[in-house]
């Protein structure tokens, strides 16, 4: 965990630990030798040191924006297999370089500006509230935080649990795309259906559904937030801005339907739609 000695970092580290995560160390440059979480977790000066000492294979990043890009690259350079960055507000030009850097390593990078990953009853790497999740067979991929929680809540209300929930972040440049995660869910034996929650802006949803059309055997349920958003205005997320006709919610939903994805019109119908597709077979 990078940034474990900060207030956000230590709070969420404790939450992850409580959920069952195995946090073996923290990294804060200059605070090596100290400990965090009331002495439970040793703190190292660098990712390389933490990796060598503990064998850590995942890093969760809570470093403030001016230092976050460096922290992501440090984790990837240290050979950490999975790097998840929660930090919001990293300059986009820095993320362009981070993405190019990480691609030269073997690391899988999720985020930034995301709620992280949660596999119910196993582990969470991020800030999702654990109690809203239930173990099951629906995979959730989303650009948004609280809308992910909403989807999980609706699934649980229909008696449908989740295999893994992943918030990928709403910035213009992110580490892992929807398409890559669809591939992983398609290969995951514990997942039977996938909920894909996108929003206005960018072309990631388009790439993902075109992939799904030709390559996926599992049903995909899709929702796009922002159909009432005016063009040219950034809606909260740095990436949620319609700058071309094909980035609108209507265009993305149309393409989803053409690619055989069950399109959810109302954000209140995410759970019900998955239920209707899976019928009585879920759980």
């Amino acid at each position, binding site marked *: 965990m990078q940034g474990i000695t900060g207030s956000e970092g230590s709070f969420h580290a404790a939450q992850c630990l409580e959920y069952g995560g195995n946090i073996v160390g923290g990294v804060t440059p200059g605070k090596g030798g100290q400990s965090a979480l009331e002495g439970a977790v040793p703190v190292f000066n660098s990712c390389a040191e933490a990796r060598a000492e503990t064998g850590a294979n995942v890093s969760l990043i809570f470093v403030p924006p001016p230092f976050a890009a460096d922290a992501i690259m440090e984790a990837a350079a240290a050979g950490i297999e999975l790097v998840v960055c929660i930090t919001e507000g990293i300059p986009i030009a820095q993320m362009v370089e981070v993405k190019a850097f990480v691609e030269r390593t073997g690391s899988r990078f999720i985020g930034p500006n995301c709620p992280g990953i949660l596999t119910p009853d196993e582990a969470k790497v991020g800030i999702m509230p654990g109690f809203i999740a239930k173990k099951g067979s629906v995979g959730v991929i989303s650009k948004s935080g609280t809308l992910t929680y909403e989807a999980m809540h609706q699934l649980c209300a229909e008696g449908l649990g989740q295999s893994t929930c992943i918030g990928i972040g709403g910035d213009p440049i992110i580490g892992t795309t929807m398409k890559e995660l669809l591939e992983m869910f398609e290969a995951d034996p514990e997942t039977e259906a996938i909920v894909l929650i996108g929003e206005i802006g960018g072309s990631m949803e388009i790439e993902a559904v075109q992939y799904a059309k030709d390559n996926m055997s599992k049903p995909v349920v899709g929702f796009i*937030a922002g159909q009432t958003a005016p063009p040219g205005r950034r809606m909260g997320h740095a990436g949620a801005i319609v700058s071309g006709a094909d980035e609108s919610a209507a265009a993305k939903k149309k393409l989803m339907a053409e690619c055989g994805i069950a399109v959810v019109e109302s954000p209140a119908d995410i759970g019900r739609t998955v239920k209707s597709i899976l019928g009585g077979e879920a759980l």
Partner: protein
Amino acid sequence: MKIHEYQANELLKRYGVPIPGGTTIGDLAQAEAAIEQVASELDTEQFVIKAQVHTGGRGKGGGVKFSPNRASALENIRNILGMVLVTHQTGAEGKLVKKVMITPALDIKQEFYAAITLDRATGMDVFMVSSEGGVEIEEIAKTSPEKIVKQAIVPGFGLRPFQARRLVAALGLEGQAAKQAPGIFQKLYQLYRELDCSIVEINPLVLTGQGDLVALDAKINFDDNALYLHPDVAEMRDLDEEDPAEVEAGKYNLNYIKLDGTVGCMVNGAGLAMSTMDIIKQVGGSPANFLDVGGGANVETVKNGFRIILADENVKAVLINIFGGIVRCDRIANGIIEAVKELDLKVPVVVRLEGTNAGVAKDLLANSGVSIISADSFEDAANKVVKAAKTRLNYGDFSG
């Protein structure tokens, strides 16, 4: 963040990109001196007067005027300074022109387009040029996409000389201009990257009768996340150009965007906030705003959110939709109760709280004695608030 054309020109000049030059004034009393200054410094008797407002389509709206002599320049300054400029981007209310730029009129031989922005799909910056300058790039993209030539920029490597030459060749430039152009393009990219721009657009980039390339009109926007790195750029922000309610919201770290509907919304998280607007529309209402109160919503953010939403006179009802993850719903409920009491609300408020301690929160709201309509689900909340906005029913109508 957006800046004015005259500010963009200052930056271009700093980076050595040729601009027409000129001066900018905000007071009619300075007009004659400004004309004299431009005439003598730039050796010209013909001018272009340009309104300095954050919008495209200034020319069509009457905000850019060619002036063949000093008297005409003065007349045009008088007309443009203080006018309300209406363009296809401003809406019917238009924008008040507080500053005008006086520039020399150039002898234009040819107009080109040049721009740099991020290509999200590839994760790389892209430098675009077109031989069709002076018109909107969206138009070129529609009518003759083959006339837009793109060059992807490998992260960390900048625009390489051979790439710049490729772009120049695509424009068909010759002679002196062909020699100048690669350097100009490299300087443009340097500006874009060093100042963390989200877009640099030169439209048109002109070839003059003297064979020089000049950036005649520049639009430069910046990545808000990176403004902390560039305090001099951040100072260029002109709050007069922004919606006052949005500026006010920004002071409280609230993300607010005004829309034209009647249902005010207060939501935590951008995706859920957009979805809340969507569902309001789907059940027959219209959202008055986008408002993301963020992850750390508390009593103060709820109060400030109310103030900003209610400053919009179109708002007939308010929907609060909070999914408490780390945030505890009982705290939000207390914030809502306190805000409703303190602000003496005149419009119905529908509240949907889900997540951590939602049950406790509902009891708090029910027993608070304040007039709040409680909703059980996302859908229920949308139906109730739209009904309330349309009919202004009494609170009793929603009981049970």
